[in-house]
């Protein structure tokens, strides 16, 4: 049905959730902020959750997760995403270069467990690093909209001041709300800001002395997350720490093919380097198949994570939740298949 309505207007859909870009801003030199107007199927989100956005690049649909950074109570029902353009990143670079008002993108409903509990905790520490600012910024804006009265600290790590997206608004929120404290930590700038250098334990005590009795929400690069996690664990307060990871794909060189584990549903085997179909059969599974030479598409299954190599063309497929033909795909490192 949606294919018929598309003739009239791509935003007129019956089942499919889509969104139209209504505004594009380049908040920092290497990021872009998009405002999206979702179609009426959109059920809203909770601050901290993410959506999957799909765009067609060179004819291929690419989906990536992004965490809305606006308040979940935004009156016009639109959502705002801030996308950091990764140096070699396919989708983020494409959006950075091509997103313009009127662009229609695919959208999923919001998902993820990274969100605030109701009722809201009395003290909240929000920590972010780099592009990880988005979900916690959404929490901050949501709490402010709710007239939150508890103590709230927003601790953000960035290379320099110029890299902080939404800086003016952050300063404004802190200035107009007595219970909100903004702490900016710069890792490559020694002047300005509140803290300098990589994360140290003293940063926590300096910015939120009560953090052990608070709930902490953290999103940032793997190094920052690991250090903070270790610190909370050492203090025995890991239950008060909630995290979100912007996992990026892992790359394994082609000559390291036969490493890692292959997961077929509940069955896990050591990667032998053979095709997925052969490995599944060696594990005693009986996936449906036909030609065994890549032409009939009978054995197509969804790869939920990991990287596979097409043994006919040598092409790598690193995207999660994409279909692969078992008979001509070999796993590269850890791979999970939905069988």
């Amino acid at each position, binding site marked *: 049905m949606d294919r018929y309505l598309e003739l009239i207007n791509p935003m007129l859909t019956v089942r499919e959730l889509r969104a139209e870009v209504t505004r594009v801003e380049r908040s920092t030199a290497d990021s872009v902020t998009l405002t999206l107007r979702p179609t009426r199927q959109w059920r809203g989100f909770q601050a901290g959750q993410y959506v999957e956005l799909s765009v067609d690049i060179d*004819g291929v649909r*690419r989906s990536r997760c992004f965490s809305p950074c606006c308040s979940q109570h935004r009156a016009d029902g639109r959502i705002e995403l801030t996308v950091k353009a990764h140096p070699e990143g396919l989708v983020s670079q494409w959006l950075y270069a091509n997103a313009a008002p009127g662009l229609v993108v695919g959208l999923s409903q919001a998902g993820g467990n990274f969100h605030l509990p109701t009722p809201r905790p009395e003290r909240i520490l929000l920590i972010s690093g780099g592009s990880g600012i988005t979900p916690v910024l959404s929490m901050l804006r949501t709490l402010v909209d709710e007239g939150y009265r508890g103590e709230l600290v927003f601790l953000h790590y960035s290379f320099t001041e110029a890299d902080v997206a939404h800086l003016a608004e952050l300063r404004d929120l802190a200035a107009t709300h007595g219970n909100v404290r903004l702490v900016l930590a710069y890792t490559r700038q020694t002047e300005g800001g509140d803290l300098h250098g990589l994360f140290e334990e003293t940063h926590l005590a300096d910015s939120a002395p009560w953090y052990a009795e608070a709930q902490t929400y953290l999103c940032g690069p793997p190094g920052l997350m690991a250090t903070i996690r270790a610190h909370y664990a050492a203090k025995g307060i890991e239950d008060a720490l909630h995290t979100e990871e912007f996992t990026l794909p892992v790359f394994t060189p082609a000559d390291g093919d036969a490493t890692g584990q292959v997961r077929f549903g509940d069955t896990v085997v050591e990667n032998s380097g053979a095709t997925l179909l052969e490995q599944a059969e060696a594990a005693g599974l009986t996936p449906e198949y036909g030609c065994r030479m890549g032409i009939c*598409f009978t054995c197509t299954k969804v790869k939920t994570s990991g990287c596979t190599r097409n043994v006919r063309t040598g092409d790598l497929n690193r995207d999660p939740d994409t*279909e692969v033909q078992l008979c001509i795909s070999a796993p590269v490192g850890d791979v999970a298949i939905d069988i």
Partner: protein
Amino acid sequence: MTVTLTEEQIDELGRELDAIRQRVVEDLGEDDRRYIYNVIKAQRAFEAGGRASLMLSALPPFWLLGTAALSLSKILDNMEIGHNVMHGQYDWMRDPALASKKFEWDTACPADQWRHSHNYMHHTYTNIVDKDRDIGYGILRMDPSQKWNPYYLGNPVWAFLLMTLFEYGVALHDLETENIISGKRKMSENRDLLRGIRRKVGRQVLKDYVLFPLLTGPQFVSTLTANATANLVRNLWAYSIIFCGHFPTGVATFTEEETENESRGQWYIRQMMGSANITGGNLFHIMSGNLSHQIEHHLFPDLPARRYREIAPDVRALCEKYGLPYNTGRFSKQIGSTWAKIFKLALPNRGGDTAPTPAVTVVPGLRDAA
């Protein structure tokens, strides 16, 4: 005609064809996406326009216009869209609307059964007598090596019926009725298939012969005849294009023994020699779902069909290089020769049964000498 090739030559041919495929795969992109979406748009417009103009189906000009538009819509849906999407030609786009596994089309045959009988059986075992059930669809005698019996005197009649009822012929294909009669297959194996067919046929009949006619109120009968005509036009067209793909004179068939332990190159050769092309203009190619390039389609069933035209000269050049036939001709010539074959094979082979000559003989062992 018999062509003699060494194992090295066959391997080399396989590599050259792989290279052609790789070149296209690397070039796939936005143009291909735009193309298929334009075809889909055209098909949707024909369908909507056709159904709309049949709202006045009692008036002959509207009946004619509506029937024509609906016929075009069904042909596009089945051939350039359905057949090709279900081959996985657009799976690389990762667009759920064009995913081979989920696609359903406007015809009697359920998509999942089609994928089995066509994508797997027919495309893997192309033109292997007794394995490729597309040779005569289990009811016709299309190859002299099929044993003659008096039933085949009706060959032209059966072919005519298959042509007019093509969508149902295709729907019943996977049931292997001939194997049930001969006892090779049990009726119980067909239970699930039958349920799927009944559901799909039911839905199609309801749509074309009940719902849409009812929508036009007192014009029920004229809308019904319009829909039936559109289905018939599509059947005639699809049958003709498909029969031109494998049955014109000169197309080779193969035996099971010949094709055991086939190499990739040998598989490619079988695909080329077991298929035939039709020449024609742009529109003709699109309306045939680019199956007018059956040879290229059989070599690379998963490449977007609009690409076949562009690689055809290279494929043809390879055929010439290796002395292989490249069967192509005008539509009238190809369809004429399939009907001639249908009539000829209604009678027993002249001069009794002779063993078929292999299409390609392979000279083994030269590999070591080289």
